[in-house]
């Protein structure tokens, strides 16, 4: 079942001569438990697609469905509640609050949603532990490496009962080892049932996805076929 669906979504900024068509008639579905990468050059509309999918921005036309619910039917408060409860965001520059420790950063969205502080802290600690960061819980962002900061950001994005993860170049500032670690965590979250969309220009990052969608000048121009499993590849190499 698709958790996220964009149906005939377009986005236009400006008017007349200043009009910019950022997205043009996008159709995209992301099933629960699957990781979809959106690849494209700078200015292809990747980030706009992500902000519209995450209800941070409204489309000019078309509809976005999250768990079957059309976002246009939600009030402003309804969208804010959906973002707090169901959607996690990961950005290239982490977006951690410098004055809060790792565990406070992770528990913040839960507390903003009304979860009692003690319960939110316990959930945040569990999330950090899942990502191998329990011993960094009391560290502030400037005490963490880039890789650790992004892992905290992912822990924050999946804490609670969130079902949709949206990531914008999540490993753009990291070396290849940490980039791989970040993608492993996102993929592991998908294998536990989350739906995820990662937008990137980086093929190494995109290759972790179950499906790669190619965006060009605001249009979906192509997508990969489902990737074969390791057994097929190893058999092709002459090994069972």
């Amino acid at each position: 079942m698709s958790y996220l669906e964009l149906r005939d979504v377009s986005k236009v900024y400006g008017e007349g001569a200043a009009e910019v068509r950022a997205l043009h008639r996008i159709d995209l579905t992301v099933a629960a438990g699957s990781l979809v990468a959106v690849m494209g050059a700078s200015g292809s509309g990747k980030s706009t697609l992500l902000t519209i999918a995450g209800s941070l921005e409204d489309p000019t036309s078309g509809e976005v469905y999250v768990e079957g619910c059309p976002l246009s039917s939600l009030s402003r408060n309804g969208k804010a509640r959906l973002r707090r409860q169901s959607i996690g965001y990961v950005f290239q520059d982490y977006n951690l609050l410098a004055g809060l420790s790792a565990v406070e950063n992770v528990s913040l969205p839960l507390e903003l949603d009304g979860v009692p502080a003690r319960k939110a802290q316990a959930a945040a600690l569990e999330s950090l532990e899942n990502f191998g960061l329990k011993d960094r819980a009391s560290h502030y962002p400037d005490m963490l490496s880039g890789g650790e900061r992004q892992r905290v950001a992912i822990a924050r994005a999946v804490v609670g009962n969130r079902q949709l993860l949206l990531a914008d170049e999540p490993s753009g500032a990291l070396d290849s080892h940490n980039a791989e670690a970040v993608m492993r965590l996102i993929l592991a979250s998908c294998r536990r049932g989350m739906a995820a969309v990662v937008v990137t220009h980086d093929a190494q990052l995109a290759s972790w996805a179950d499906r790669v969608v190619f965006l060009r000048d605001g249009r979906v121009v192509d997508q990969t076929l489902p990737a074969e499993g390791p057994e097929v590849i190893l058999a092709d190499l002459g090994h069972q």
Partner: protein
Amino acid sequence: MSVRHALLALLREGPKYGLQLRQEFEARTGEVWPLNVGQVYTTLQRLERDGLVESDDSTEDESPQKGFRITEEGAAELDNWLRTPPDLSSPPRDELVIKVLVAIELPGVDVHELVQVHRRYLVELMQQWTRLKEDESRFDLNFALVVDAELFRLDSLIRWLDTADGRLKRAALEGDAPAPQPFPLPKARRKLGVKQ
């Protein structure tokens, strides 16, 4: 890839049998390059002919239990090979590059669509290799290095396609489509090994 030098490297660790060399070669290369036993023995015969290995004469020639050991000349040859960088000074005749270059001049061909066909294929290949990495318990260090090398190789091709795509788009916007003129520095062309 030099099977000859890979076998010398294995024999540097100590005397080994032909079948043993085949098994160890495949294990060391992440089992990505299967090697048939005939290839192993043919290579060993040539190494022996060149004085780089010696065989155990106490058993029959084609016996799978025939032992081999590296000679001093073989060890020197191996050291020299390890320290000699592969020849990357001349651009290879890359088929993908040639296809794109040819397409630019062909009427009726959408070069961006062509680039996308190749980009998708390469990303699909990368997805397959990355699937192999997903389960870390399945492979050892050697295999991980081989998979990484293949992913970086494919990634570099995709980066070139992305760059070519952007360059062609900008050229079209500027009304400055590349004209079919030869590279104006013949000396540089020769130095780079680009054939006329």
